[in-house]
């Protein structure tokens, strides 16, 4: 029987009302009196030396206030990187300066060179054409392997090479892994590319800087997933503004998918220029700008090898990956191909020995950082592709080969050879569920039907394990994180009993305003509408780390639970006083405090009123008021897992791939709002299917982005996708957070690409085409070429 409110209920999203009526408050909807408009002049070459910038003609134009160049930022710091990787030799990664505006050199198409600030946006754009910039173009470094050749052009002259770091994990396992390969009964090897993607949230980035002379305070309105992180990075490292003088507001944000985690130059620019000009400065990205200034995702080139013994048990995995960093290090860039990728290479399996090598490379391309899944899709894709290839080589059922190597339910907690300990999971359960829901055993009949229609049908399976809620802080600090990864919550109970929750998590589509309220409502027994969720404003919310990595409920929700527990404990003391009973005898149910074994009770509102009107109150024991804050630092990651099954039809004449069925069986632990969880999975699947079949950020040899608009970057549309069957009935609750939740935001994007590609290859091989692999996106042209090679 589904619940109608609280934890487990599919409560309607309260935020929808404002979004559906045009009353959302997105950053571009904000206009401040006296506002000016910034237009960024960006490099149209991938690599070059700036000889001169002449702004005089532009500055003389009507409506132009000032043209800024790097010279204006001589006192500012560079955009910092938030994670340091130590290489195989124990050395720190190479970390180039990332200036707000290009200093002497441009390093990717889109690198900002100058900014025109004017009374109107059109005046700024008109004047931009009058800024004379003389650049000597240099050879562009685009291909990662070529970038590491001796004598290759360097992206950064002050670094020793284009190698950011060469990372080995676990370095101590290297020889043992090699030995295992030497002894293997069978080795399957696969070269593959994890295609470069653009997150493309539908809302382009926006920044508005504002400065108040009277109190020397700055406000930045920005499209961010983590306003406190922006405040810390920009305030402490770039502009030297103390945090108490800097407010960062991220209001309604139209999607992020990782690309709005990072601190960007435009944010620092608008904040800085607002003080220089003593006027608000607004910048709104166009979509064309977004393609060359938002951090991209993925872009790995990998060789993976899987060793098996004579019984088809996995004995070792060895990988070598080239990971593109782009031209500068974005905020979390070095962590993605390392700790968020290497630690997941065990997948759902008992492989005892694993060695991962990652070479991170600078190129003349847009910086690359986390995009939905962030490292985990790259790990999952390699693993689930090489297992599928092994099954074909060995002539065994791919589902059974996986099952045979699963970590079994009685093996948890399970320590992998790549430094993480899975707390719970039941991989057989999700595999059984997906095979049942997707009617794996009935495939032959469907394939025959497709064949009768002239189509090749294939079925593909993939399992995934995810690590969410990256933590704990003391561990990630050892791994190179330059930040903590806790979350905060402040619960303020008002005198009349309504509640405001201030969370450091940030909702940009996830529905926190609804789900977080469900949790608190459930704990106290109040109607959900008595609880308001406040987020996205550093002047209201305690220091928080924001939303990414499927961490909000597992970490931010846990902080909120802890704060609410403190509230309840204090309220019980007040209730005990009011009812003249022992505190231990007080029970809270449905918003009523009662004394166990008696008919005495007092309502929630009476207790909260007493807290603020403490006439009859245990002032000797506790303070008045009812407001509590908690910071929650998790003991471990959470480990959602699942099994995905994809069926495709391939048109043998054109190579077109149609996803005709997709089934997802996930284990997210406990679920607060099933409707929202289902929506998160559907959205993730769409992005994963998009990566597999359509999306790709492609550079030419000169570093021009060929897929620089929606005219060439293929976003999935409604008619590209099938009905997605989503199930989350498998449930092994997380053991170390109070809600038993694991996180669901990235799963779909992690598990689906290999399922799709495996299905396409299954279709081709069943039809007699001996094709081992097709790189993503598996476009019609690539499928046709593979069939005809």
């Amino acid at each position, binding site marked *: 029987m589904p619940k109608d409110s609280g934890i487990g209920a599919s409560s309607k999203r309260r935020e929808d009302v404002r979004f559906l009526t045009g009353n959302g408050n997105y950053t571009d909807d904000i206009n401040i009196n006296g506002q000016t408009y910034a237009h960024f002049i960006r490099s149209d070459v991938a690599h070059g030396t700036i000889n001169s910038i002449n702004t005089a003609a532009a500055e003389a134009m009507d409506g132009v206030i000032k043209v800024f160049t790097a010279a204006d930022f001589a006192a500012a710091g560079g955009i910092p990187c938030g994670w340091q990787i130590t290489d195989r030799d124990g050395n720190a990664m190479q970390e180039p300066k990332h200036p707000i505006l290009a200093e002497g050199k441009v390093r990717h198409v889109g690198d900002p060179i100058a900014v025109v600030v004017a009374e109107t946006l*059109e005046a700024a*754009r*008109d004047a931009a*054409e009058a800024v004379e910039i003389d650049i000597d173009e240099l050879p562009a470094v685009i291909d990662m392997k070529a970038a590491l050749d001796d004598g290759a052009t360097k992206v950064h002259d002050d670094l020793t090479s284009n190698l950011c770091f060469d990372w080995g994990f676990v370095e101590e396992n290297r020889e043992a892994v090699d030995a295992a390969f030497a002894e293997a009964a069978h080795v399957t090897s696969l070269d593959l590319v994890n295609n470069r993607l653009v997150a493309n949230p539908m809302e382009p980035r926006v920044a508005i800087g504002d400065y108040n002379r009277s109190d020397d305070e700055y406000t930045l309105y920005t499209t961010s997933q983590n306003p406190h992180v922006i405040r810390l990075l920009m305030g402490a490292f770039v502009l030297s503004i103390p945090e108490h003088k800097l407010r960062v507001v991220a209001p309604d944000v139209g999607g992020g998918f990782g690309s709005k985690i990072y601190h960007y130059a435009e944010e620092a620019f608008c904040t800085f220029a607002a003080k220089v000009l003593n006027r608000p400065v607004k910048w709104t990205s*166009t979509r*064309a700008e977004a393609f060359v200034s938002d951090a991209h995702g993925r872009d790995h080139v990998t060789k993976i090898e899987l060793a098996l013994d004579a019984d088809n048990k996995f004995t070792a995995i060895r990988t070598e990956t080239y990971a593109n960093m782009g031209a500068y290090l974005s905020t979390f860039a070095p962590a993605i191909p390392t700790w968020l990728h290497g630690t997941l290479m065990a997948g759902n399996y008992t492989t005892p020995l694993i060695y991962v090598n990652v070479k991170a490379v600078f190129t003349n391309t847009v910086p690359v950082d986390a995009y939905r899944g962030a490292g985990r899709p790259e790990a999952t894709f390699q693993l689930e592709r090489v297992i599928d290839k092994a099954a074909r080589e060995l002539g065994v059922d791919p589902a059974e080969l996986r099952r045979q190597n699963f970590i079994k339910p009685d093996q948890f907690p399970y320590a992998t050879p790549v430094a993480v300990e899975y707390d719970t999971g039941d991989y057989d359960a999700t595999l059984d569920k997906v095979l049942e829901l997707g009617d794996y055993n009935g495939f032959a009949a469907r394939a025959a039907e497709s064949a009768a229609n002239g189509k090749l049908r294939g079925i593909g399976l993939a399992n995934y394990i995810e690590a969410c809620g990256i933590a704990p802080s003391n561990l990630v600090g050892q791994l190179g994180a330059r930040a903590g990864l806790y979350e905060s919550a402040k619960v303020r109970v008002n005198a009349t009993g309504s509640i405001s929750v201030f969370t450091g998590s940030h909702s940009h589509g996830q529905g926190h305003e609804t789900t977080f309220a469900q949790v608190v409502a459930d704990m106290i027994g109040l109607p959900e509408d008595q609880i308001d969720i406040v987020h996205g404003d550093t002047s209201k919310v305690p220091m928080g780390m924001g939303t990414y990595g499927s961490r909000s409920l597992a970490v931010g929700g846990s902080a909120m639970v802890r704060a609410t527990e403190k509230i309840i404990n204090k309220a019980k003391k007040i209730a005990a006083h009011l009812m003249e009973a022992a505190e231990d005898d007080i029970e809270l149910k449905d918003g009523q405090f009662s004394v166990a074994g008696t008919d005495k009770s007092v309502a929630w509102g009476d207790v909260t009123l007493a807290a603020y009107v403490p006439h009859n109150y245990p002032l000797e024991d506790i303070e008045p008021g009812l407001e509590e804050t908690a910071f929650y630092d998790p003991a471990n990651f959470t480990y959602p897992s699942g099994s995905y099954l994809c069926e495709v039809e391939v048109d043998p*004449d*054109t190579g077109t791939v149609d996803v005709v069925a997709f089934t997802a069986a996930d284990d997210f632990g406990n679920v607060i709002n099933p409707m929202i969880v289902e929506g998160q999975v559907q959205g993730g699947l769409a992005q994963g299917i998009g990566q597999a079949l*359509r999306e*790709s950020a*492609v550079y030419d040899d000169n570093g021009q982005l*060929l*897929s620089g608009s*929606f*005219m*060439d*970057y*293929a*976003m999935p549309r409604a008619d*590209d996708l099938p009905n997605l069957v989503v199930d989350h009935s498998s449930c092994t609750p997380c053991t170390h957070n109070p809600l038993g939740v694991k996180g669901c935001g990235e799963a779909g994007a992690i598990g689906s690409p290999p399922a799709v590609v495996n299905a396409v290859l299954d279709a081709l091989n069943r039809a007699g085409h001996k094709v081992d692999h097709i790189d993503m996106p598996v*476009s*019609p*042209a690539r499928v*046709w*070429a593979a069939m005809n090679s």
Partner: protein
Amino acid sequence: MHNFDFVSPSTVEEAAAALQGDEAQALGGGQTLIPTMKQRLAAPTTLVSLTGIAGMSGVSSDGGALTIGGATTHATVADQAGAYPALAALAGGIGDPAVRNRGTIGGSLANNDPSACYPSAVLGSGATVVTNTREIAADDFFDGMFTTALDEGEIITAVRFPVPQAASYQKFLQPASRFALTGVFVAQYADGVRVAVTGASEGGVFRWSEAEAALSADFSAGALDGLSVSADGMIGDLHGTPEYRAHLIKVLTKRAVSAAA
């Protein structure tokens, strides 16, 4: 974009006069021109809207020919060109519903995007492009990518399509833009078959004459079995190689014949 004067004439004559100015440009539905102006790749100083001119919109049928006003939207053609079903279907597949409510046949033809749908219908039907000064046969109208026989300031007032015995347009979508990666229009007339190909060639829309000859003799998909298209001169980009496009031309032509027959 650069600023301009917007004028909205009510007659073709007024529009033609307005277009005589320096850097004046005609505006149909603007579905291509406006994005181009946003990129500052086009910067007219005067924009002359053609959509308010009486008599330039609408579909009429007359003695085996279908005449479509130059400012007729794709949506109107999809809705009202029932006398030429393949043409109506083509119009109903351009862009998306909101684009079809604005984009016009005249605008599409004057732009002659190498991946646009309409040029293949016009060439494949042997249609006549009617302008404010003359009539231009389809075979003389298209002159390579983004180039036509139109003079500066010349306005497409209508397009006259002879209605074929059978026809079909087969479009293979470029996955991002939804333009034709390759599109083939096949039309069978009493005096022969015409096959026009869009999206594939670096020279823009073209007729596949070998296929026309084969299909004129035998209007069946099988008649194409021995033919192939050379990849020379075909477009190669991130969505498909020249070889792939050449291959698609044959596949789509066969499908068009099967659908039409």
